């Protein structure tokens, strides 16, 4: 007993103060890309050619589809004029698929749904559907004392019947498709779907392989998109808090 108390004292209080205070983010984190369109050289294809997931679009404007981007930074390295840079801004969650395609004007982050039905109590069931366990790792840590998800009334529960929605990871493999959709059916309405990671949003690095379905986007209506490969836990937390109106800016 005394040993437990001594350990308790030694470990101290270690919960991050987000969203009240800005989180400590590693300086090298590849977060929100910043596009300097005016520097981009006409006819240069360096970033488009190197991108492993075809996330870069060059019609008239230079744009990045964060739903496909795996934040590897290869484009920023390849660009001869530094027209693309990755900032360490971790806030990336959006409400609509098209909002993930960002240009020089930046990102339109998710806002609280107009009809808020899940204010202070929101339960999720997580389904990994071909995820590499990377996104799962960074969702799992939200339940640790560092992020302490339950202080916001958000919980990850065991049964879809007890949940208000699904957090989906992975490109939806052929072998998991029916289980994933059945789990969704088991969630009582109204229900939410949160897609976490490039795989769940677009198939990510597995896009167009026959063993998967290019993510959940074409299969179920998605209420929140959290891009990344995998997203930083703060990115996921920030997204979930936007869903319940705890973060707005």
């Amino acid at each position, binding site marked *: 007993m005394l040993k437990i108390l001594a*350990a308790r004292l030694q470990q101290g209080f270690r919960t991050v103060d987000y969203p009240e205070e800005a989180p400590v983010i590693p300086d090298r984190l590849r977060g929100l890309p910043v596009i300097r369109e005016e520097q981009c050289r006409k006819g240069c294809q360096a970033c488009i050619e190197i991108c492993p997931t075809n996330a870069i679009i060059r019609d008239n404007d230079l744009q990045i589809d964060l739903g496909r981007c795996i934040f590897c930074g290869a484009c920023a390295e390849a660009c001869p004029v530094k027209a693309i840079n990755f900032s360490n801004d971790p806030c990336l969650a959006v409400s609509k698929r098209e909002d993930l395609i960002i240009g020089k004007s930046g990102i339109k982050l998710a806002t609280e749904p107009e009809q808020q039905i899940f204010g202070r109590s929101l339960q999720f069931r997580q389904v990994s559907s071909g995820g590499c366990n990377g996104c799962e*790792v960074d969702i799992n840590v939200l339940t640790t004392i560092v992020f302490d998800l339950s202080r916001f009334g958000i919980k990850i529960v065991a049964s879809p019947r007890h949940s208000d929605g699904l957090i989906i990871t992975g490109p939806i493999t052929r*072998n998991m498709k029916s289980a994933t959709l059945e789990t969704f059916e088991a969630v009582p309405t109204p229900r939410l779907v949160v897609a976490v990671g490039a795989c769940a949003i677009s198939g990510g690095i597995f896009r167009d392989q026959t*063993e998967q379905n290019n993510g959940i986007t074409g299969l179920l209506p998605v209420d929140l998109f959290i891009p990344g490969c995998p997203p930083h836990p703060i990115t996921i937390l920030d997204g979930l808090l936007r869903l319940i109106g705890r973060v707005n800016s």
Partner: protein
Amino acid sequence: MSSVKHCFVQNGGIKALSDVPCLAFSEFQQYILDAVAQEWRVCSFFGMEMENADNRTGQPLRLIAVLANEAEKRLAVMTTQIEKHFPSFTTAIPQFHMFEREIAEQWGVTPVGHPWLRPARFHESYRKGTDIWPGLPQELFRIEGGEAHEVAVGPIHAGVIEPGHFRFQCHGEKVFHLEISLGYQHRGIEKTLFGGPHKRTAYQMEALAGDTTIGHFLAYCQAMEALQGVKVPPRAHALRAVGLELERLANHTGDLGALGGDVGYLPTSSYCGRIRGDFLNMTALICGSRLGRGFISPRGVRFDLDTPERLEKLCQALARAEKDSNTAIQLLWDSPTVMNRFENTGRVSKETCLALGLVGPTARACGALRDIRHDFPLGHYQTAKFPTEPRHESMTGDVAARALVRWHEMHDSLRFLQELLPNLPAGGIASSATKAAPPLRPNSLVVSLVEGWRGEICHTAITDAKGHFSRYKVVDPSFHNWIALGMALRNQEISDFPLCNKSFNLSYCGFDL
């Protein structure tokens, strides 16, 4: 074992494919039987198609076996050629069981006499129209009898965890048999590697198993460097070892905490959940990604501990995490209720371990001393001998032993990092070769081994005449070890399943690929 008819290889060394002899099957079979009798074990066993064949269906299949012997510190490669059938090794050598199921599924050939021939991952054969299980899905093993009952768990589990199906055959609370049926995470990675490397290949190699990003990607980089003839500078080797050991520390800490959680002991579980994140954040401090995505490259590493401040920050974080993990995990061993639940639960005997060819901490907890860092060291581990003392020999193979081995390994890794970090070799962090990747040497074979936190990661790359992959084979440690979980559950209470499962913490996606 005579060396006439097979070929010895080095970890990360390149061999001309013409130096690897192709034996008649009977000879191949006899060599394997003799070798295993002399304590060789199977690292990898897979099929590939013969080159330059116009008609893909109906052509012979080449089988390649990679064997290792820790006592002799030798790796050997042997190959043979088969048509549509071959006599199964599994009854004589159980460690072949899953490899043969995989070969049957991938290539539509039958290992005749395999005692439990089911699909490994539930996908179509690589050769169209050759599936040997046209009527999927297959029945699972079942015990009949008035008082026997079965329990089905998964693919959807209770926690934030990957999918897999577990089928228990029980008598009351007692488990007679557990069958594990996977494949739900199958993304078709190996299939896409034919003709590679492609633009996405490196990124897929980082995502074979997200929690082993560095382990698997290091194995890939070692193979690529051998094929490209790239020399990696010492500082990059050292930084790779830092990444690999941080990955081990993070996962071992998380699992020890989760073991506490599974027996209802919350102090350790809540502290370790956080400390695991502290280790992940150290990796992020170096490269920006908590899992080490983008940290290493097939020329060296992409990020340096460039400033004294960054190095100092890392050393301080490491010292703090060591102190925190020491007090948090010591509570486990000091708590009789915890030890009572750990001891004699989920026991795997050394005989079973050797017969099934288990690897990593799971094998070491059974007293089988296998560690790539020690037996087949590469990179920084060649110069700085990794402190793997043969002190685990009396290990009992139960949950307590698997927990204790992880704890010992954490200490080894911490000591290793504390000695290494202040003495990092100076110099560049990537090969100064031209930025464009050199072409791969054609008609060659490389075996690349890395001791990931779960155990031996084995990648085998074989190139064709044009220098593309004619086969790239990945073996995650979980591929060897899932069967151990089934064995551990025999004659246990079903309620001990979560505890046993966590004591192995095997990878679903690493198996499913």
